[in-house]
Each structure stands twice: as C-alpha cells, then as structure tokens.
C-alpha cells in the first residue's frame, strides 16, 4: 500500500531523516515509535507532502507521490491527522468536518460527504451533539476525535496519525486507540506515530523504532514489545527526555 524507500528529509541544512525505509501493507496498523525529535513527525510530514524529502521515493500503490504538493496527496488517498490536533478553532465542528471532505465536495460529491459526516458522528456521538459549537471550545479529547473524524472525511486509503494520545487522560487514550482498531476492521490502513509506545504497539500489527532520523529496529508488534533492544530504546527515550529538559 504505502512504500517509503530510503528517504532523506532536511530542514534547511539540518537532516531530520537519514535514508528511512518503511512499508505499510493494506489493512495494517503500523506504529512508529521513538524519542522526541527522532523524526517521527517529519516522516509523516514527508509522506503527506508538507515537508517533501530531498532524496528517496514514496510510493502509494506503486505510484510515486514523492514530490506532489500536500493538497494533491490528500486527493490520492493519504490523510494526515496532524500533531496537536490542529482543528480550525474558529470554525464550527460541522464546518471542520465539511472541510475534511473539501476535495470530494469540489468534485461534486455532496451527498456522499453528508453521509460521511453522519458516519463520523455515529463513531463519535459527542461531535454530533456539538456540531454547531466552535471547534476551539471542545476539550482536548473531543478535539482529537474531531481531528480524526476530519481526517476520515477525505476517505483515505492510508490514515497518518501523529500522537493522537498526546495530552489525553488514559481512559480517552484507550477510547481513541479502540477507534483505530475499528477503523482497521473497516479496511483503513493506519500509520501511527506515538510516544506512548507500549499502547501503540499493543494495537499494531507491526512497528518501527526510529532513533535520530534512522530506523534502528522493525518487526512484528508483539515481538517488539518483548524485544530487549526495544527496552533499550525506551530507556534511550528517557535519557533523551532528560537531556532536553535540562537545556
């Protein structure tokens, strides 16, 4: 479904990804775990076209999407739920969902989009209740649901999620992850970025561990959870965090 072949991504002169290769099969949940600053978000942004890679190739169903602009890539079937949710706070919940279906509405698929808004509202009943409220007035968990719902409105083949559990209470994290499992059952392919590595790997089929811009480990999710090297990677994560908070 999604193939990432040796991509290198830069911010100016700083190299954030070093020849990262990764593959997501249709119907899988694949987690990308790693420390803060390891390049997880950059990887998603490279796939979605927000920060295109300088070298390497990204294929969706065998078709190169590497240098397409972000707004085209959405239309090809990759939808990103960005970090910190980034809902349109000054627009209503419903308008946020409507904009999620922007490209489809442009193509005249009004009824299909309206039906999908209903489906998202069934998935997250709180959104239906609050559909006329401004998105900025929702709680963090509700905004995350809205961000996921908005991402689904593009009818993606592959859904990219960036830290959906960030800042949420454990119970809500569970709820969000359950939604992802349901989405996989309905046929959506998911690439999930999480700092909450254990929770992410528990619902995943496979996982990759990213460290300072490179993939250092990959394998079946269950194997990764029990793998000693992964334990080391977790320890590494703690150390990194300490270093960062010191300066």
């Amino acid at each position, binding site marked *: 479904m999604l193939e990432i072949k040796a991509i290198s991504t830069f911010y100016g002169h700083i190299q954030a990804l070093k020849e990262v290769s990764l593959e997501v099969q249709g119907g899988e949940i694949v987690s990308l775990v790693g420390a803060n600053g390891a390049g997880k978000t950059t990887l998603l942004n490279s796939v979605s*076209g927000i920060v295109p890679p300088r070298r390497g190739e990204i294929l969706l169903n065998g078709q190169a999407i590497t240098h397409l602009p972000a*707004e085209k890539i959405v239309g090809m079937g990759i939808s990103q739920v*960005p970090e910190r949710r980034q809902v*349109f706070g000054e627009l209503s919940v419903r308008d946020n969902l409507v*904009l999620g279906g922007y490209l489809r509405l*442009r193509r005249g698929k009004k009824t299909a989009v309206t039906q999908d808004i209903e489906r998202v509202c069934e998935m997250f009943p709180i959104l239906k209740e609050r559909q006329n409220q401004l998105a900025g007035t929702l709680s963090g968990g509700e905004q995350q649901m809205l961000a996921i719902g908005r991402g689904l409105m*593009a009818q993606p083949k592959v859904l990219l999620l960036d830290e959906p559990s960030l800042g949420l209470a454990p119970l809500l994290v569970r709820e969000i992850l359950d939604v992802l499992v349901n989405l996989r059952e309905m046929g959506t392919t998911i690439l999930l970025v999480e700092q909450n590595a254990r929770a992410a790997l528990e619902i995943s089929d496979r996982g990759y561990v990213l460290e300072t811009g490179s993939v250092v480990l990959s394998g079946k999710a269950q194997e990764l959870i029990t793998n000693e090297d992964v334990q080391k990677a977790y320890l590494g994560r703690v150390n990194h965090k300490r270093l960062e908070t010191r300066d």
Partner: protein
Amino acid sequence: MSLQDQLLQFLLSGITLGSIYALIALGFVTIYNVTGIINFAQGEFAVYGAFMAITVFQESRLLSGNVAVNLGWSLPASALFGVVITALLGLLLYRLAIQTARHASALSMIIITIGAAFVLRGAALLVWGTDPSRLPVFTKGSPFKIAGAILTRQSVWVVGVTAVLLVLLYLFFNHTLTGKALRACSINPGAARLMGINTKRMALLAFGLSAAVTAVAGIVIVPSTFMTYDRGLTLSLKGFVAAIVGGMSSPVGAVVGGLLLGVLEAFSAGLLSSGYKDAISFIVLFIVLAARIGGLLRGRAIVAEQAGL
C-alpha cells in the same frame, strides 16, 4: 443650523466617509488573513476601479490624449467593468509581484507591495494623466433631510452598497465551501493543506476579492469627490488605519474601525478645521501602531511560512 443639527451632519458625513474606509480596510484584512501580507497597494485598487469605470462610461483621452475612447457604457456596466478589471489587476499583482518572491519574509512582501503601489501610480499617471475626473451621481434628485441634517443620495448609495457588500461577504465566508476554505487558510494554513486546500490558489483568490471590494469603494466615491491618479496612497493609509484599529484580522473589526475613523475625521474637520482631519487619523495610526505592530507582524509571518507562500 443649530449645534445639534451640525453634530448630526458630521455624524452622517462621517458614516459615509467611514463606509469607504471600511471597504478598503476589508480589502486589507482579506489579504492579511490569508497571506500575512499588508498590501500597501490597496488604495491603488480604488483608484483603478474608479478610472476604469470612468474610462468606459464617458469620452476619455488616454496616454496624454493620444488615445481617444468613447464607449459610452451605461453606469452599471461601467461600474462592473471597473470592479472586474481591478480584480484581475489584484490577481496579476499576486502572480507577478508576490508569488515570484514567495520565499521572502512577510516584511519584504510588504515592501514589495509599496513598490507595486509606486508602479501602479506611475502607470495611472501615464494612462489617465493628472486631470481629476468623476462619474455622475448614481441617482439624481434632491438630498434627504434628516432632522436638520442633509444626506445626499450618493451618501445613501455609499452606505447602502457597503452594507450589501458586507452581507454578501458574510454569506461568502460563512456559507460557501470556498469561503470556509479561505477562513481555514487564515486560521491554520498547514492544516488547510492537509484538507487538500490549495493555499496558493486561496491567496490568489484573496488578492482578487480584496481588489474587487476596494474597487467598489473607489467607484462609489467618485460621484462625490474627484479621483486623481495619486489618491491611492492616502486611501491606503486610511484603510490601513481602519484595519489596524479593528485589530487587522477581523472583518467586523475592519468595518467598525472604518466607521470610527470616518466619524472621527468628520468631527475633527467640522469642529476643529478640515486641515486637521488627516493629521488626526495619522495620530490614531501612530498610537495604535506604537502599541501593537511588532506582535502583529511576527505572528502572521509564522502563519505565512506555514502556508508555504
């Protein structure tokens, strides 16, 4: 005329004048929200809107009298022509001056617009010369009397057209997909791109829309005052003051700012002297700028960067 009547008169003139400032301020805000650019060529759009309409409406001599134009279009057709051509000019400004410099900082972009204003003013001088010109009033007839004050029919047109335009813009931004997409771009360009919204095309649209709205301002005032090629700068600055007073990013604020500025000018012209009216509005500009411009520019520069404009 009693003092009370006079005050009412100032208020009415102020609202008329303020409507014009409000339209120009709306032009500023539309571009600023979507692109983070403060477009100091904004007032030129009013000049071009007016001159384009005048050119097709009445017998005109262009390029130092070398070209004679005598189309004799009707007033509505001429007004529409002025608005459409100016909107195209807005698109052109974006494509030629802004998009080609898309990696520049927001501050450089602003300076580019000042340069564009000079170019447009020079071109207007070449095409239309230094002679002032005007359109006839939209409807003939005696002015209305409200209490002891006088309200000309053209003032009613100015305020009425502004009100209608505001309603249309409100409907556009709140009830159409493109309007919502434009707002999404102004709230979070990065997330807007993830929805499949082409932020560059939205910026182009913002320039066209903004030019059209400001062209309307130019056209509705030319029956009351003469248009000259060099009025753009003053109109830009007045519209900018109104937009800044209104908080720069809110369309409602822009309208309130425009009306406030218009009323303030009318009262200072009436009660002090008309020589002071520009000074007053620039004192307002100075005070508001001193208080907040730094934060304003920094915030939007980041937004523009995210949009990849």
